[in-house]
């Protein structure tokens, strides 16, 4: 091989490298060991708007964003110590002053003896990714907001549900308010009569006024307590024992079941079934399902009407479940897909919200409700919640 041809080959190799250098989409710099720019590729002139003359011979730091200079200094120090910098984020400025975020990597260029001649700096423009990440972030936040709204709605529903059960308390609440109001009225009328006497009885009047103030305070603080009680509370979850819920529901339903000729059978698991949930909401759900069951068994003669509540732990799926089973008329096949759809009902005076609310609340509690397919007549709902114990 003669020198001529070797030289030609070197030249052609250099051309190839130059071409390669030119077409690399990353920003490529050749830097002196003291970080002066020796050469740049076309990606830089194209994307950052600098000509070769703008950058070559100048310090790399000159076209970096001011807030990055400390970081750059750090990278230079690391480079001196470790001879390597990989994908470090800094910001460079375009000729017209816009910021581009780049991931900077540094590698040494060595002579045959292993001495450092120069270093290659390759910067991958990350601005777009950054931007799309920002978009993604925003999209995520929107999603989160939507989720928050959904949860808020579910809480609203749970709240309505709770309020419905509180309707039953309304009578005793009325009583609580009637007492102070009654006392206030009587005292006011008495005071007015005492004042209208030829010789007003000041002692009685003073007593009446003092008691009016006292009773007013009593009514006010009562109302305040009520407000706090009715205030929408976030669904805050805690450890609850499904066996306790089961017995509670059994107790609540005992009388109405007896009236409607339904026998209630309770099958609590021998061990507590402790799940993550919210006692009142879960109780409402089970009550709702059980009431549906009591309605469903009315098609049978009264001796055969049976409602069964069962609890069990399923360690294999990490769930605790409560089953509400009746031997009533069952859910016709064609109704099954619509079962949890709001406003779908087969009851003459039903709203069709019970099951859809149940499902919403159950899902807000990370639980699940299923209509279990089976051979026997009747309906079996299974509600599961995340198991804590055993």
């Amino acid at each position, binding site marked *: 091989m003669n020198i001529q041809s070797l030289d030609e080959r070197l030249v052609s190799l250099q051309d190839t490298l130059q071409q390669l250098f030119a077409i690399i989409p990353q920003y490529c710099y050749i830097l002196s060991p003291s970080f002066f720019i020796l050469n740049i590729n076309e990606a830089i002139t194209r994307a950052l708007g600098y000509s070769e003359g703008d950058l070559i011979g100048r310090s790399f730091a000159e076209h970096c964003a001011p807030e990055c200079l400390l970081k750059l200094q750090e990278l230079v120090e690391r480079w001196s110590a470790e001879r390597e910098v990989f994908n470090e984020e800094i910001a460079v400025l375009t000729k017209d002053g816009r910021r581009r975020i780049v991931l900077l990597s540094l590698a040494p260029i060595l002579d045959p003896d292993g001495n450092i001649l120069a270093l290659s700096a390759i910067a991958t423009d990350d601005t777009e990714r950054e931007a799309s990440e920002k978009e993604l972030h925003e999209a995520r936040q929107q999603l989160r907001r939507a989720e928050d709204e959904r949860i808020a709605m579910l809480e609203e529903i749970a709240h309505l549900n709770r309020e419905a059960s509180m309707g039953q308390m309304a009578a005793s609440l009325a009583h609580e308010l*009637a007492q102070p109001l009654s006392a206030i009225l*009587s005292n006011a009328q008495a005071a007015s009569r005492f004042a209208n006497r030829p010789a007003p009885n000041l002692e009685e009047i003073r*007593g009446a006024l003092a008691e009016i103030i006292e009773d007013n305070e009593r009514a006010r603080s009562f109302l305040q307590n009520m407000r706090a009680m009715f205030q929408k509370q976030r669904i805050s979850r805690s450890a609850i024992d499904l066996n306790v819920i089961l017995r509670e529901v059994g107790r609540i339903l005992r009388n109405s079941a007896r009236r409607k000729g339904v026998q209630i059978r309770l099958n609590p698991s021998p061990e507590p079934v402790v799940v993550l949930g919210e006692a009142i909401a879960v109780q409402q759900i089970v009550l709702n399902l059980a009431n549906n069951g009591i309605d469903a068994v009315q098609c049978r003669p009264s001796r055969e009407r049976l409602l069964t509540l069962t609890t069990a732990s399923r360690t294999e799926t990490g769930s605790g479940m409560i089953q509400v089973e009746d031997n009533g008329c069952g859910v016709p096949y064609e109704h099954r897909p619509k079962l949890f759809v709001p406003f779908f009902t087969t009851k003459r005076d039903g709203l069709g919200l019970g099951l859809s609310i149940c499902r919403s609340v159950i899902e807000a509690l990370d639980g699940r409700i299923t209509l279990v397919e089976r051979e026997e007549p009747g309906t079996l709902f299974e509600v599961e919640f995340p198991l804590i114990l055993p």
Partner: protein
Amino acid sequence: MTDGLVCVIDDDPSVCRSVSRLLRSHNKRVETYQSAGDFLEHRLPSSPACLVLDLEMPGVSGLELQQALAASRDTLPIVFLSGHASVSASVDAMKKGAVDFLSKPVDDSKLMSAVDDALHRAQQAHKRRQALDQDRAAFKTLTEREQQVCVRVARGMLNKQIGYEFGTTEKTIKVQRGRVMQKLGAQSVADVVRLVDRLASAGDKLSDHLNVEN
């Protein structure tokens, strides 16, 4: 304006105090009790009195107290006050002779007309009671035989019939009958009839005096 004692029974002290103040402003004599049991521990008032009674009380409820006082229903008329009058409770109370059934908050005029009505009934009952006590006292002044004669006269039996029943003469009966009239302060046979009627309708056992021992 009717005189008499009003007993206010309510477990709520402020209702107790305010209702009693209102009654005082109408110049009523008032006693307050915080529970039905509290009231029952005291001697029932001997003068005309009525109750203003809370329906919903812990322990003995208003309706239960009404039941317990059923015997003195006329002498101790009841006005019920209720925080939330249920229809069934009010019907129940009225059937058992309550004067009125008012819901809280109660208006002055309604309460007063009910209380006056109750006191009026109490006074009537009181008068009847006093008259009855006098009748009994008068009847007790009679000897056994005179009582027997008295009851028979009131039944419209003739002296001759009574004499025959007792195995004595018409004349003896006539003397005894005169003493009965005198002791009872009766102007006529009609007075005797009315007195015996009053005692009989008060539940006094007069049939004993229809049996002749000898």
